[in-house]
């Protein structure tokens, strides 16, 4: 009987339709079109609704996956969304950008023999078709004032969580738009900005006061906020300080950090120039350096701006690329030329201060560490030049030192990330908590949200405790 039930399960995931590569590489519309309701229900039927679901443990916020999938199977998208929202306040975002193959789907039991359930796409379907307000807890009297620094995934999550249980939350965001990397980094074709806006609106509806144009460390310091009566401050400022390669030619015209390139295009909408005022250089031949999501996003953005040839230069092999699998596949389908085991050593000047090429060295994989990650070593005499007139550097970011340097009693580690208790987010400074990329370094949307969620509980506890001590 049991065997029969398993046998009828489709070993393959229900495919999701996408825009064709030749078409999508010329527009900024979303690549993945999402499941129809019918496709979602068909995929939901593949799930075994395990009693001890392994997938849940793979999700950093422990979304109750079998329950929401069961709701979709019954066609109840509202309920599915409601179930997800009790754990994850940004389902429309996570369903699209979570590295599911490393998280929930990696643990799915079906994945042992067949393809795992497409949990991410189902989560997206719940957000696309369902409607559900997150429940607000009724509280007596007003609770304490809490300040959140940064309106990225971590800041938005904690603001929502704390507002829901009655705290007065104000978010201070440096840019003119909330969303963090979701609005300035991840491109429209992967995460439509309208979705981020919807999710921000639903958090504002909970009573969160969102103040843009507020750079903490300058407009106010952390200590100013304390003096202003904020009982707790949660720092969620991300890791947005761009790294450069420190190779010759990096300050030539035509060299962009990925952050600059993507911010111009996404936040400032330079792809709509001159309808929008911010310009971007459109180049024919572009090299993007790096192997993560940021590199993929930059390369695919360059293509959409009209580049004829885009090279992605990565010093290790495809196996080591930290970018999401789906996005690497998308990039290759669109015609991005992958240059694996290649390390840039110099950016060439055309004689007028503009980029004329990227000089690189071929690498081979040397000794490997325990995790199987192997060190690339240069092959002598293998120099060659990529003929490009634009170079985008996407080799990572580090912590912006603005907050730590203006808050002397806030401890940071040797890389400048804020030291915070893993379980609570508590920092070295009384009443100050932190979470997301500013603690861990660049990670993922959902891990930033997971940290925020844990910290929200710890903060509520901390405030209850200090109240009872006062009495």
């Amino acid at each position, binding site marked *: 009987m049991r065997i029969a039930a398993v046998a009828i399960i489709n070993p393959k995931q229900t495919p999701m339709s996408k825009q064709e590569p030749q078409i999508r590489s010329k527009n900024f519309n979303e690549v993945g079109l999402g499941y129809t309701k019918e496709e979602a229900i068909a995929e939901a039927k593949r799930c075994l609704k395990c009693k001890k679901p392994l997938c849940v443990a793979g999700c950093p916020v422990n979304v109750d996956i079998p329950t929401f999938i069961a709701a979709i199977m019954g066609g109840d998208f509202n309920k599915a969304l409601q179930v997800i929202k009790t754990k994850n306040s940004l389902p429309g975002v996570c369903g699209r950008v979570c590295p599911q193959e490393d998280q929930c789907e990696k643990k799915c039991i079906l994945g042992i023999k067949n393809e795992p359930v497409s949990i991410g796409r189902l989560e997206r379907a719940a957000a696309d078709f369902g409607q559900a307000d997150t429940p607000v807890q009724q509280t007596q009297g007003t609770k304490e004032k809490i300040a959140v620094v940064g309106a990225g995934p971590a800041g938005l999550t904690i603001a929502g969580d704390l507002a829901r249980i009655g705290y007065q939350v104000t978010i201070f965001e*440096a*840019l*003119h738009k909330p969303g963090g990397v979701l609005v*300035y980094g991840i491109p429209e074709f992967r995460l439509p900005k309208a979705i981020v806006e919807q999710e921000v609106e639903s958090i504002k509806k909970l009573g969160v006061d969102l103040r*843009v*144009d*507020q*750079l903490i460390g*300058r*407009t*106010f310091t952390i200590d100013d906020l304390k003096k202003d009566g904020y009982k707790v401050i949660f720092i969620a400022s991300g890791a*947005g*300080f*761009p790294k*450069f390669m420190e190779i010759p030619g*990096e*300050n030539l*015209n035509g060299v*962009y*950090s990925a*952050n*600059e390139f993507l*911010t*111009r295009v996404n936040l*400032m*909408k330079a792809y709509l*120039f*001159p*309808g*929008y*005022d*911010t*310009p971007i*250089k459109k180049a024919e031949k572009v090299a993007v350096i790096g192997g993560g999501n940021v590199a993929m996003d930059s390369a695919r953005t360059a293509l959409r701006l009209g580049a004829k040839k885009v090279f992605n230069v990565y010093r290790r092999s495809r196996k080591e690329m930290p970018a999401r699998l789906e996005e690497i596949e998308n990039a290759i389908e669109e015609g991005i030329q992958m240059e694996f085991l290649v390390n840039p050593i110099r950016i060439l000047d055309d004689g007028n*201060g503009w980029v004329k090429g990227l000089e690189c060295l071929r690498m081979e994989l040397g000794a490997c560490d325990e995790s199987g990650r192997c060190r690339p070593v240069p092959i002598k005499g293998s120099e060659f030049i990529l003929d490009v007139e634009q170079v985008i550097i996407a080799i990572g970011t580090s912590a*912006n030192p*603005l907050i730590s340097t203006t808050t002397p009693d806030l401890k940071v580690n040797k890389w400048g990330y804020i030291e915070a208790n893993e379980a609570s987010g508590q920092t070295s400074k009384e009443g100050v908590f932190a979470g997301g990329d500013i603690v861990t370094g660049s990670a993922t949307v959902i891990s930033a949200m997971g940290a925020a969620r844990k910290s929200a509980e710890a903060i509520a506890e901390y405030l209850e405790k200090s109240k009872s001590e006062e009495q």
Partner: protein
Amino acid sequence: MYKILTKRQLAPSVKFIEVAAKDIAAKVQPGQFVILRLNEAGERIPLTVADFNRNKGTISIIFQEIGKTTKELGLLKPGENISNVVGPLGQPTHIAKVGTVVCVGGGVGTASMYPITRAFKEAGNKVITIIGGRSQDYIIWEKEIGAISDTLIVTTDDGSYGEKGLVTKPLEEMIRKKEKIDQVIAIGPVIMMKAVSNLTKTCAIKTMVSLNPIMLDGTGMCGVCRVEVNNETKFACFHGPDFDGHLVNFDLLMHRLKTYPAEEKISLEKCENCRCGHN
């Protein structure tokens, strides 16, 4: 929304506005700037805080209308709003009692120089100010900056007012006469800051300049504002905008400012109001 309270024309295509921005006014120090965005489609541009009134909660900005955004800003009337103003940005100018300070302001840079000059004066320094412009019409803020300087020297390129010549001329004379100068601050066009730095380098007079590269976020997030100082790359919005003039690669800065000439022209041509509107 940030309301424009007053507005004045100071010189051909140089305007003054006073903007309600309570939190920035409370915090700003001489040498800092803001980034503003006029509307939803607007660019983010950096402008120095030329003055501030902490009690009234206002900041003043003096700007030259050179491209689409500054021209559109020039068209806004008192009572109208600017969508976004963030600040104060950058490190404040390092102010100390050093003795005699020469403040050199070129063109609209004179406005950026004003709060710095005042702070040096209040710190107990002897302040000699040199301001210059193309012709008499282009000399701005003379009365204001004169009132806080021990000596004020004005130069014009065409000799229509003050001394004929560039701002470096009186400075050169002072150096030749071996007058005691402990520090120089220069703010203005890149070429002028370069000339001043080259001049003072010969006699090792400490010289600070305020750099004005292209910026985007102004928080350290994008790196477009990178400049070379002592052969190291720095982010002007974060480490600056003030740097030691003797260590700055001015040629690189000038070159990087010329990243978008074609796009700037398109923007300006698209801006219909910019062409006919005068108020």
